[in-house]
């Protein structure tokens, strides 16, 4: 008789190591106790983001351990000219016998920022996977219904060149402004929000590129390379391109986010998407493009603008540096507002290209300016003189 040798596997063991099995000091201390929540109760979002990125001003006893060639490590507050209360307090000097303590948490006002979208991986992937599914379904449905056949020829030219050109804005800002900024912010909450923003833009860029690819396959004569010509040489786009490139050249991470999300997006992004493409498409037989563009519009209007306003609102109302910050932001406004309005005006010829015209450019620009002014008013910032010209 043969016997089967017993397999070597770990055996389950009853350990009774579950919560509540015993009473002892700390047995009921089941919340992260190293930070103060923004509201009464700690949120799931706060638990998974707050304090992951350390700060030598409070708990980081031995300081940063690796530095750049100039000796600076970590996330210097000086990477933006804006300041939150406590920014001028020096990093506590620690040495022989000093102990490890820094200032009481949060040590300075930067740590008070919370992303109102409460983005972390679970919410982020759910949201973006849903967007991708919906965009794909809309396009598939349109293809099955032969919806692209209803487009008039001028609209086909418009989409291949100008809707296509916008993908480059998304890609450039997504990578070289927003993703770049995720290395610059002083807390994990800032950097996570900016990383999420960057992926919105990169996703939107790819959505437009792959939509363009579908149209190349579905519409006879659709020129899948026309967007490159528009972006590289169409005079209408060179203003937008000049500003977009300028935005990626900003060193100060707060200025970059401010110029992109507070100035450029309302004056140029929403103007192009909401006041032109979304308005013109249905009149030209296209119900698909607005669903692709609309996903991006929602990203900005409902999420990326929201965190940006929360970020800058905290700084314009800062208990120590409100005036300092407002003066800087007003300076940024006086630099970027005219450049963005000039870029917007260069887009004006696009309004006359579709057969069925959208509402007038000037009306659209007025709405964009009103929206922009309302954002500035919420932040307590000056309305730049260019808005009234």
């Amino acid at each position, binding site marked *: 008789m043969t016997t089967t040798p017993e397999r070597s596997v770990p055996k389950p063991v009853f350990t009774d190591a579950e919560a509540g099995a015993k009473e002892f000091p700390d047995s009921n201390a089941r919340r992260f106790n190293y930070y103060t929540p923004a509201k009464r109760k700690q949120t799931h979002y706060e638990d998974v983001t707050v304090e992951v990125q350390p700060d030598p001003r409070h708990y980081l006893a031995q300081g940063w351990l690796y530095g750049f060639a100039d000796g600076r490590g970590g996330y210097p507050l000086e990477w933006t000219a804006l300041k939150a209360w406590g920014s001028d307090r020096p990093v506590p000097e620690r040495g022989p016998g000093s102990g490890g303590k820094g200032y009481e948490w949060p040590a300075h006002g930067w740590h008070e920022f919370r992303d109102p979208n409460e983005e972390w991986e679970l919410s982020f992937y759910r949201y973006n996977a849903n967007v991708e599914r919906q965009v794909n379904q809309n396009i598939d449905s349109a293809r099955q219904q032969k919806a692209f056949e209803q487009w008039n020829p001028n609209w086909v030219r418009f989409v291949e060149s100008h809707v296509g050109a916008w993908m480059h804005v998304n890609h450039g800002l997504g990578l070289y402004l927003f993703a770049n900024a995720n*290395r610059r912010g002083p807390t994990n909450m800032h950097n996570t929000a900016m990383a999420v923003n960057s992926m919105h833009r990169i996703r939107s860029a790819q959505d437009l590129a792959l939509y363009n*690819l579908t149209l190349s396959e579905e519409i006879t004569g659709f020129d*899948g390379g026309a967007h490159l010509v528009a972006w590289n040489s169409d005079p209408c786009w060179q203003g937008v391109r000049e500003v977009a490139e300028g935005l990626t*050249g900003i060193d100060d991470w707060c200025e970059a986010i401010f110029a992109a999300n507070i100035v450029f997006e309302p004056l140029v992004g929403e103007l192009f998407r909401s006041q032109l493409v979304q308005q013109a498409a249905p009149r030209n037989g296209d119900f698909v493009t607005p669903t692709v563009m609309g996903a991006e519009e929602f990203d900005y209007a409902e999420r990326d603008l929201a965190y940006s306003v929360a970020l800058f609102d905290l700084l314009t109302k800062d208990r120590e540096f409100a005036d300092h910050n407002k003066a800087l932001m007003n300076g940024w406004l006086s630099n970027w507002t005219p450049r963005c309005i000039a870029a917007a005006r260069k887009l004006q010829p696009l309004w006359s290209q579709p057969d069925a015209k959208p509402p007038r450019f000037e009306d659209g620009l007025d709405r964009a300016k009103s929206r922009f002014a309302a954002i500035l008013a919420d932040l307590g910032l000056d309305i730049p003189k260019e808005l009234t010209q």
Partner: protein
Amino acid sequence: MSRQSVAKAHQKIQELSWEPLYHEPVAQYGTDYTFKKAQKKDPLKQVLRSYFPMQEEKDHRVYGAADGAIRGNMFRQVQERWLEWQKLFLSIIPLPEISAARAMPLLFRNVPNPELHNGQAIQMIDEVRHSTIQQNLKRLYMNNYIDPAGFNNSLRNFQNDYCGSIGRQFAEGFITGDAITAASIYLTIVAETAFTNTLFVAMPAEAAANGDYLLPTVFHSVQSDESRHISNGYATLLMALADEGNHQLLERDLRYAWWNNHRVVDAAIGTFIEYGTKDRRPDRESYAEMWRRWIYDDYYRSYLVPLEKYGLVIPHDLIEESWNQIWNKGYVHEVAQFFATGWLANYWRIDPMTDKDFEWFEGKYPGWYNKYGKWWENYNRLSTPNGHHPIVFEDVDYVYPHRCWTCMVPCLVREDMVMDEVDGQVRTYCHEACRWTDAVAFRPEYEGRSTPNMGKLIGKREWETLYHGWNWADVVQDMGYVRDDGKTLVAQPHLNLDPKKMWTLDHLRRCPPLQSPNVLLNEMSPAERQAFHADYVKQGPAGRPAPKD
């Protein structure tokens, strides 16, 4: 759109990139590498259209398992010994993950390959995923495991504890200094390609053997993203190799990155796997066996060695020396013994090894008992307070070690300790390779070549310095490692949760003050220092004093 092939879609998204006409993107990070002859290829071929649903599906599985674990009362079967070490591991790992996200922008301006930037952006958001999913796992442990102390104060603990500082290199090394050294060689070529195998594959297997199937669920999900990151690193490495002027820097950086990863990761993960487990089946793989398989065979022989033909100078000597440290010099055992010696400065509980543990160690590492057995018996004897001090103050044939200035793990293989005066300070190093890292590699000139972008070692690198002359009760209170009764320590050298058996601040108050080895070393005369060094290298194994002549 959904019917398009991945290759076609990937080709299309290459049209997105553009060369600046009016303004250059900001250049904030420097490198001494050049990429003049580089070929430009993106091996990743990932588009977000498929990426997001894939990641969402992976999340469904992870969070479904988390719900199942709670409903199925997983914590009734979890080994406390294992979960206690997770208090250290899960306090460390979310920062390296998020630092990897932060590292990606270092590459944008320095690696002139727009195709690769797409892969780097996806890696960035992968790393955000890893960091928050791991924080979430820790939160779940805190809420459901019997002893939340150490989880509940996790990120404060991590930031002010010496173990946290050791682990922090595995994060700060990604984001500072020369952009290619940091974000490519240290992060993707060595940390991710070599050492995530032990972190995210070997360790989860051990977790499962200890009744914890959530850690494997989370970390295998994480590891499934790592293969993409490895592709990013490989593509950058091939680009760097195309310029012969980079070869000298690659040799330097591989030596530094390899040795530092070995010192840090093998110290931590080796300890978790060998000393944090209750699975003592004789045929259970040891850390040394895992290392040989995952790192020596899979990484060194299969990945690194084939790159020699492209001109990569591989640090064969350091790879063999790492194995020598693990197999012949007991590196992991020395580290685990040190963690246990200094249990009172920690924020987790370390229980004594038992006869069953001894038997397993002896089987896997012949001669283990003669070196370490007696000390662990003493650890067991001194684990509950009974009129004596914690083991570090008792006479158990153990000399408290000096700390390595570079890797910050103490100089535990005593014979290898090197002493040098660097930047006007006398420093101790655990090995010549660590001295070289500080004194030679992290400098603005390397072998006569200007390296202005190379980073610097900064910070208060010896933890004991901060508390030189302090009473231990004040040290632990300053760090915040005290439970909610205001006196019982978070750390304990046993797993007994009976408050009468637990160490308190009162016990520490009676102990001798903490002394910084480095402060004392610098107070010595040169002759005293030479004598100290001569004695130190004769100490060990297992921290034993030097034999009397």
